[in-house]
């Protein structure tokens, strides 16, 4: 068949080593697909979700139990979002461990970090929009962390929350950010990220003279592989959605006793663990921000890979950067495990 618009978004051919699953793990590509899934399911949910404190949790229950296939839309949105966080994390690790951040790709690496942040904030704001007892503590503590920031803390809190405590304005603001503000930024930066990939010469690979395998694959073959991955990913998400419903709890109601899980969402468990040990600003804001800064500046601080070593995992010349990321990753993992094992405080 004649190549379509979608085919033409890809280069006519790309080096075969770039496209190997064992090289990229398909993590970036899957992230793009998952963004499409969460946007589509999110739009569907917008037809029923009510962004007020009284209506929010009940509208989520309506979607989950009463709307035909509402459970599927909601669970797909939830699992798609969690899979997205996992996928972009794997993609980050892959990029650093294969040296894909080396010039001319340093700008795109920064754009990617921005995308990671957007994904985390999207996941957090979406989580809060449930407005039920399961998110109450995360909402309170997560947003109170803002107030610990010196100088701008109080003002920033007011900006984020729309008041001096979680209330009706908070729901509307988080909804506006989640559905529009952050999504617009995500799509815009995402398109930029994809454009930069082509501008920078595609997925990083050794220069032609150093390449072991000189073969190339056509854009139709590339698209076929992407379709395959999309089909498998969709089937997996659907099966997850059938087997494991998205979490839901009793609504937050004014004047009622506070109950519920005091655990942070899984991607912030490591921060919650840090917060158990001391000063909230230092441990909850400064340390995570510092780790983020370290990862962001990796391409600038530590030596990158030599061009001939590109195209494979763990190029020797960028070992320092790999170890640095490994240490940060291991620390976050360890903190997460600690949080789960020793402080399992669900009522």
């Amino acid at each position, binding site marked *: 068949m004649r190549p379509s618009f979608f085919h033409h978004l890809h280069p006519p051919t790309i080096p075969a080593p770039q496209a190997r699953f064992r090289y990229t793990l398909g993590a970036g590509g899957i992230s793009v697909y998952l963004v499409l899934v969460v946007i589509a399911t999110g739009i569907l949910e917008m*037809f*029923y979700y009510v962004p007020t404190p009284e209506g929010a949790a009940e509208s989520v229950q*309506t979607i989950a139990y*009463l*709307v*035909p*296939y509402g459970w599927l839309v909601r669970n797909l949105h939830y699992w798609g979002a969690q899979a997205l966080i996992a996928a972009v994390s794997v993609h980050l690790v892959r990029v650093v461990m294969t040296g894909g951040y080396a010039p001319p790709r340093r700008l795109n690496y920064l754009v990617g970090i921005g995308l990671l942040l957007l994904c985390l904030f999207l996941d957090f704001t979406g989580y809060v929009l449930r407005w039920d007892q399961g998110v109450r503590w995360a909402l309170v503590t997560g947003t109170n962390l803002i107030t610990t920031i010196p100088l701008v803390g109080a003002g920033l809190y007011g900006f984020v929350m729309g008041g001096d405590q979680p209330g009706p304005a908070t729901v509307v603001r988080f909804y506006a950010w989640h559905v529009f503000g952050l999504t617009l930024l995500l799509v815009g930066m995402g398109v930029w990220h994809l454009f930069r990939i082509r501008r920078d010469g595609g997925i990083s690979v050794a220069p032609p003279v150093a390449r072991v395998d000189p073969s190339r694959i056509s854009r139709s073959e590339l698209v076929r592989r992407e379709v395959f991955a999309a089909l498998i990913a969709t089937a997996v998400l659907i099966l997850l959605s059938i087997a494991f419903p998205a979490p839901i709890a009793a609504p937050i109601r004014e004047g009622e006793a506070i109950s519920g899980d005091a655990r942070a969402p899984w991607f912030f468990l490591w921060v919650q663990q840090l917060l158990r040990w001391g000063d909230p600003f230092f441990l909850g804001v400064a340390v995570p921000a510092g780790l983020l800064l370290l990862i962001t500046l990796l391409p600038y601080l530590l030596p990158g890979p030599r061009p001939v070593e590109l195209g494979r995992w763990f190029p020797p010349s960028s070992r320092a950067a790999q170890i640095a990321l490994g240490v940060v990753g291991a620390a976050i993992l360890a903190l997460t495990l600690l949080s789960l094992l020793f402080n399992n405080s669900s009522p």
Partner: protein
Amino acid sequence: MGSQRSDPPPVQRRDFLQLALRGLLALSGVLGLAGILRYFSYRPGPAKPTRFELGPSSEYPPGSRTVVPEAGAILIRGPDSFHALSLTCPHLGCTVEPTSSGFSCPCHGSRFGPDGAVLRGPALEPLRALRVEPGEDGQLVLFTD
């Protein structure tokens, strides 16, 4: 084997696979679309009430015409029976106002007689007649369905 040009070529395996692939994808697409349409079909909330208790008939003397705002209707007691008219204009749904000579709609100027008949358009149909029945203990019940 000798190929005869007049016979259609046998279906190649790869074409069959292509066809099967497109068939499966099309079927998945149709199922997905059907699911999305069902998703949008949900109607939230309880239906508006269609049954209104009006109290004992002694509260409505003969000859009286009483507006029942919560039902959007007017209760008329004739010499020996009760009947009711809907105050919703059959044109585009505004609420008509009772006048000395019947009813008048403020939106596009329709006029109705005291029994709901159309005197002047743009409405084409009269005001809808509603059922009034005696309920338990002689209380009146108005039905708007």
